[in-house]
């Protein structure tokens, strides 16, 4: 095969990638065209007067709570899987269950959240029910991310501390875990980015269209950007320029979360040269 044909083949293979990039630019440019129509004072104005304050704060409440529930459990689960789990049937089942949990459609998680958290646990349509529901979606991401981070810490770190007389848990909690911390934090941020715009899972579990002020306890419903964007378009048929602001703010929150996760990862992989990189 001549060099020429090979170049042609590679060029053809490159077209789909260009299409992917163009789609991204297209979405970005569509969203940016809306900036002109957004009135920035709406950000700090109450929803009762047509602003977005409660939606923005509500989204942040929901995210932080869900992350607070999911991250400790996720990190401890990852420690178990990396450092303690014997290789056997039970561990395989746990491993498989994490993958399957990550694959459950968000609408089914929402259905489950409604019947289990809202009705059977008696939380009702509330912030707390939303935390638990979204935590189920963040959990697999945190476990997988933390597992990877823990595995990248060289075994010699832990061995050195064991040789100095530390117990296994002491060595893990004071040596391995701090070394893996940047990776763990990255996974938590990625998990938050993944659910920041989630709608289907909180549709019946924690959101309402309008509240009087911010929720004062976790047992009150919240307003979120995603839910409002959804309901305003689908149920109320709002024209694009009315909801552009909501879409933009949501996009900015999600993108800044995932961008900071990506940058954090790149930064620490460059700095922590002792990481055991794949390949």
């Amino acid at each position, binding site marked *: *095969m001549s*060099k020429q044909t*090979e170049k042609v*083949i*590679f060029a053809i*293979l490159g077209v*789909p*990638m260009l299409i*992917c*990039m163009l*789609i991204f630019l297209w*979405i970005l440019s*569509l*969203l940016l065209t809306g900036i002109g129509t957004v009135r920035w004072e709406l950000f700090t104005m109450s929803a009762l007067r047509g602003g977005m304050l409660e939606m923005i704060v509500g989204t942040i409440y929901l995210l932080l709570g869900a992350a607070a529930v999911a991250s400790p*459990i*996720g990190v*401890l*689960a990852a420690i*178990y899987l990396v450092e*303690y*789990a*014997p290789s056997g049937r039970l561990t395989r089942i*746990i491993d498989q*269950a994490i993958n*399957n*949990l*990550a*694959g*459950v*459609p*968000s*609408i*089914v998680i929402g*259905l*489950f959240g409604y*019947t289990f958290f809202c009705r*059977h646990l008696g939380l009702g349509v509330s912030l707390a029910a939303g935390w638990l529901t979204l935590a*189920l979606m963040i*959990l*697999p991401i945190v476990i997988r991310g933390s597992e990877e981070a823990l595995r990248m810490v060289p075994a010699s770190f832990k061995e050195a501390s064991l040789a100095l007389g530390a117990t296994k848990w002491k060595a893990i909690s004071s040596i391995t875990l701090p070394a893996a911390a940047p990776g763990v934090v990255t996974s938590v941020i*990625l998990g938050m*980015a993944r659910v920041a*715009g989630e*709608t*289907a899972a909180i549709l019946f579990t924690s959101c309402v269209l309008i509240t009087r002020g911010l929720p004062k306890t976790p047992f009150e419903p919240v307003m979120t950007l*995603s839910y409002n*964007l*959804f309901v305003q*378009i*689908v149920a109320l048929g709002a024209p*694009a320029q009315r909801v552009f602001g909501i*879409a933009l703010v*949501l*996009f900015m929150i*999600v*993108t800044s979360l*995932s*961008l900071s996760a*990506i940058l954090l990862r790149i930064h620490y992989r460059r700095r922590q040269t002792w990481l055991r990189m794949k*390949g």
Partner: protein
Amino acid sequence: MHLRSQPIEFVLFLCASLSVVALILMLLFVVMEGSLAFTRLGTQLILGLRWETNSDLYGGFPLIYGSLMVVSGAFLIAVPLGVCTSIFIAEVLPFQLRDSIKSVLELLASIPSVIYGFIGVTFLTPLVASIFGLQSGATALTASLILAIMALPTIVGVSGETISAVPSEYKEAAFALGASRWQTIRNVVLPLSKSGMLASVMLGFGRAIGETVAVLMVAGNVAMVPTPPWNYLAPVYPVTAVIAMQMGEAAVGSLEYSALFGLGLILFIITFIVNTIADAIVRRRPVGRDVQI
């Protein structure tokens, strides 16, 4: 059990097994809430042709058909694009560019579905309507297009990973035998990563069939099998969309409420099977086997 005398290990084990508990609870509660529909409707829930809430008819076939139609349309677009992109990124693209392109794809993957829905409603629907001269651009085709964009990053990401998992010794051996770069890709890299790509497509399928909000906003939401059945310019009402739209109005304990949980169970089972198979494929990746050039 391996509790030994270490309480800390037991706590860690509990955290790890929470995923198993969550899955079991999910299955249990969805089945429980759906049980009324299973006993009253039986196979009608899957095979019945009419879904009309007003006449208390809950035949899920048009909905399941709608879901499958939208997802297959999306995959006809996304799989060739995604697989080519992943090969290009892993094997052809200069090393320095790889990370930034991957980051862009990661950002694309993190855009929430309600924003894709918003873009679909505001820009894609009018576009489809004007191109095909339709009254409304909310069709199965529009939903497929949006879903294809959403599935792309998953497919590119996972198949890219399996491509880079091919040991470089294999490629070097091919080069040493005088193979060109393309010959190496076609005869060494692709056969070895074929199964991983299949897994990526299945994972993408699982994601896509469970996608709710974006699809709901652009699919038109008419609970009928289009005529003819391959008419992509007709509106459809995918399973996920029905659940999201009707859950709010369904009275707790009614047949409608139960039927919605029944649909949820169908989704749960489909994605569970697809994900388990994809997982098994990834585990049995044939890297390390003899390669024939």
